[in-house]
């Protein structure tokens, strides 16, 4: 645990350092481009967490084991947090660079729907009532939400046509220092995700433990 905390500390400090100091300033966009490193970090973590929700949901329906349910719940909560951060950092980046806070581009539209879908996932959990129902309904919704995403992307492309690639300058000639900054950020954020996930799962397990103790008291 301490090792993990230490690694996360190093990872995040490293991310901030590489993003702000180590990486060179981008020629076209200027300093605002630096937010891109954090943005990629949060996007990656959000994607990872929602994939975990999908897999845990399937596993929960197959095994009915509480572990998968806890994993799905924790991952979804953290995922919603990180996708919110993604949207916010993206908007902050977009305003000076594109001139607008938001645009209904395929990637952005899909991200927006993703955000809504996982907030609804949390709504399902809170409104379901009994614990087994909660877990099952949420698992069903988790599966459907994840499967919906590629189709949402395809349909968003329909409405707006093929739009210019979001991160246009990246294709050719990304400076090696920028690559390093990006990788350090990805690793740092992933470590942060693992830490948050462990903590959140720990809280759920403690809640289960408390309920179990209460039941034993009564019995």
């Amino acid at each position, binding site marked *: 645990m301490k090792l993990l905390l230490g690694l996360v500390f190093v990872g995040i400090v490293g991310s901030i350092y590489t993003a702000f100091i180590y990486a060179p300033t981008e020629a076209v966009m200027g300093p605002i481009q630096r937010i891109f490193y954090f943005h990629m970090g949060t996007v990656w973590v959000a994607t990872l967490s929602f994939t975990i929700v999908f897999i845990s949901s399937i596993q929960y329906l197959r095994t009915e084991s509480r572990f998968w349910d806890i994993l799905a719940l924790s991952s979804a909560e953290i995922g919603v947090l990180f996708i919110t951060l993604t949207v916010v950092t993206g908007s902050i980046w977009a305003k000076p660079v594109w001139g607008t806070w938001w645009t209904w581009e395929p990637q952005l539209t899909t991200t927006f729907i993703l955000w*809504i879908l996982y907030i609804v996932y949390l709504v*399902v959990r809170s409104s379901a009532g009994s614990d087994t129902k909660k877990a099952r309904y949420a*698992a069903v919704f988790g599966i459907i939400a994840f*499967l919906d995403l590629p189709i949402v992307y*395809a349909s968003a492309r329909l409405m707006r046509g093929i739009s210019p690639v979001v991160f246009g300058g990246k294709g050719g000639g990304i400076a090696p220092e920028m690559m390093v900054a990006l990788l350090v950020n990805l690793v740092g954020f992933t470590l942060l995700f693992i830490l948050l996930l462990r903590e959140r799962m720990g809280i759920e397990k403690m809640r289960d433990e408390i309920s179990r103790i209460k039941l034993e008291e009564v019995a």
Partner: protein
Amino acid sequence: MKRVWAIVWKDIMTELRTKELFSSMFTLALLIIVIFNFAFDFSSELIPVAAPAILWVAFTFAGVLGLSRSFALEKEGNSILGLLLSPMDRSLIFLGKMISNAVFVFVVELIMIPLFVLFFNYDLGNGFFPLLFVIFLGTFGFVSVGTLFSAMALSTKLREVLLPILMLPVIIPVIVSSIKLTAAVLSGNPISQAGAALQVVVSFDIIFFVVCAVVFEYVLDE
């Protein structure tokens, strides 16, 4: 398969007696179209652009209403117990409910089309049968998802309120693509023009019909 038709027939018979689903869906769809009529100042250029969207908004919201009511009726009469006791695969129950829901929604949509033509002074041209086909595809998609989610929503604290929240984000691709297809069909172009939209709708229909049927048993309760 006979059992599936038994479920469908039961729903249709119930509906024919009370007509409650049909009347509420129809009224809502009509009102939506009327409201949109006041919302925009319809010039002749605007109508072909706005019409498919208005049509599908009306269908979607009326459909959501009908879907939530349909399962609520089951719950009130406690007939869910009867359904669960019958010796059939849960996916067949899904199929039966889905078909009956689709029939109700489809009937409402069919009646809306001539009214729509009337209110917006629209000329369908040769587009009537392709339009029916497009509406069928789109409805099939959102009714599959809706049947699953309505079964889910009714056993929660929020009950019917949860259904639109669950359904609408998930069916966005179908609605968007159906609007695109409807626009293509109504402007007289052959369907193949909106090929990408057609692909999206068909793949959505197939994928979600199968997934919802498989997952349905986890959602049926009590």
